């Protein structure tokens, strides 16, 4: 058996794959956070809860309505996006223009409500969600066996990230979004319905989180607390990457996921804190973050 630094290569590749998968979720979630923050100046603490809602929507659709994985990939984000639109219209909107900390506190309260309610109804234990039949089994890559579903998640998340990036960088809607991030008043004075743009952006960000949640359901179990533990790590990812750049958020997410996976191989005790340690180092060396601009 081959080894690298005394570690058997299949174990190494296995952990890199797990790291890549975790990184996929970090990337998708920090991307959504960055888009929302860019335009709304709100750190969406409910992002983790919205991710959890996506996973639960998939689980409930399957259990009670018989709607399977593939349609859930569309339906769950639509449901969560709609909930988010209501939240933006009736709550977040009232906080624009005041200290952004209040947006953080409001979404924190919402996250507590959502998580507490789901925990009350469904208990804290995770619920299994089987991957669709088309994606079960494993693929022999020659150097390792890869479960097909995991490979799918990495590929799908890449598509989602690149797709979102293209939407923002290459479309007219994206141009509105970028311009409004710089100067929302002027964009509105040009006749763009900026309040609607804000609503849609929050809905889109939440839908992205929900989509990640559906993808996650077969890998991690569906549980009320799956989002809150993840969101704190994603905050660290966002601090490392800086929120100035969409591409930066994506790249940082994948890289930190892989680094975390590698830590699991070489120094497992530190694997749960390695991302926070990296954040601390980045704060010492480049306080604005790797891709950030000091504001």
């Amino acid at each position, binding site marked *: 058996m081959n080894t690298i630094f005394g570690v058997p290569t299949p174990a190494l590749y296995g952990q890199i794959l797990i790291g890549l998968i975790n990184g996929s979720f970090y990337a998708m979630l920090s991307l959504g956070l960055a888009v929302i*923050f860019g335009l709304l100046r709100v*750190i969406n603490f409910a992002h983790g809860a919205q991710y959890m809602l996506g996973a639960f929507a998939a689980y409930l659709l399957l259990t009670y309505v018989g709607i399977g994985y593939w349609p859930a990939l569309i339906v769950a984000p639509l449901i969560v996006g709609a909930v988010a639109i209501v939240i933006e219209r009736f*709550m977040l909107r*009232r*906080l624009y223009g*005041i200290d*952004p*900390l*209040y947006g*953080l*506190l*409001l979404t*924190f*309260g*919402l*996250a*507590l*409500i*959502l*998580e*507490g*309610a789901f*925990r*009350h109804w469904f208990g804290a234990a995770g619920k299994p969600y089987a991957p669709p039949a088309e994606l079960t089994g494993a693929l022999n890559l020659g150097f390792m066996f890869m479960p097909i579903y995991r490979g799918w998640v990495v590929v799908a998340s890449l598509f989602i990230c690149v797709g979102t990036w293209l939407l923002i960088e290459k479309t007219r809607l994206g141009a509105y979004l970028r311009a409004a991030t710089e100067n929302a008043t002027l964009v509105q004075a040009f006749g763009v319905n900026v309040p609607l743009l804000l609503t849609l952006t929050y809905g889109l960000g939440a839908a992205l989180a929900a989509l990640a949640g559906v993808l996650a359901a077969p890998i991690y179990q569906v549980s009320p607390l799956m989002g*809150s533990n993840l969101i*704190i*790590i994603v*905050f*660290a990812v*966002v*601090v490392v990457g800086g929120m100035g750049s969409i591409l930066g958020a994506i790249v940082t997410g994948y890289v930190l996921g892989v680094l975390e996976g590698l830590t699991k191989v070489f120094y497992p*005790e530190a694997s*749960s*804190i390695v991302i*926070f*340690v990296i*954040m*601390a180092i980045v*704060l*010492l060396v480049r*306080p*604005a973050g790797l891709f950030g601009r000091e*504001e």
Partner: protein
Amino acid sequence: MAVGTQYLAEQPKLRTTSLVVGAIALAALLAAPFFLYPVFLMSILCFALFACAFNLLIGYVGLLSFGHAAFFGGAAYFTAHAVKVWGWEPLSGILLGVAGAAGMGLIIGFLAIRRQGIYFAMITLALSQMFAFICLQVPFTHGEDGIQGVPRGNLLGLIDLNQPLAMYYVTLGIFLFGVFAIWRIVNSPFGNILKAIRENERRAISLGYRVDRYKLGAFVMSAALAGLAGGTKAIVFQFATLTDVQWQMSGEVILMTLLGGIGTMVGPIVGAGLVIALQNYFAAYDFPVTVLIGIIFVICVLLFRRGIVGEILELLKRKPKGTV
């Protein structure tokens, strides 16, 4: 935000009123254990001190720490370990907790003050989560079980803290000392510079103040006082567990302060009392406490951002203006 203290200083009449109210409050606190469960009261005192310590940072420097549970729960672990395993006397155990929290505050604060506003909140949250992970793994905290059965012992070898009333009055003493310390800090020249930083950081920098040092100083003091609350809580309740270092606890102390009134002296105390009382009340019902806390958060942020005490002070401030 921090209109309370300044305003009182300018209003001699109100000042006497507040002295009277303070005296009544003190008398009530002294008499309280004869009417209410001492454990319930001590719980309120510990959390009220914790909220006051947190408020020192958000209310007077404008920094929202989302990681204060690390100092509160960390100190509880240090105190519990020193008293139970090393057999320390309780007060020195609590002081060790304070020192430990101050040390952690120095490290976390040093990193967090490198960014502002929303990032500051995220960084403190992430670092305290890292500390929670460490607490889960290192042996001395006993993982999921926590440190149980911490003896209350004899304070300075003199007072037997196993007597509920003795424990209560010691806790009250610590609470009053902590609040007095915060009051002194806020009304010192140091405190005035903190407020200047909160109002306009750039101007404070251009006036030649080393803003970062003041922020770090305030952060360490706030952490140490949160540690005082946490260490005391470990003696009162005789255990230290992961609950106290987790992010939910950081959220609770934010809520107490927000509900009572950010930047007011008594607001966090009122907020802590209300939140603890509500939690106790709802514990008897089948209603999830997390949801309750979330709902109060949303209502506070949307409807009364000044908090209960803040809104009352605002009303008092308007009235005399109208009559003059």
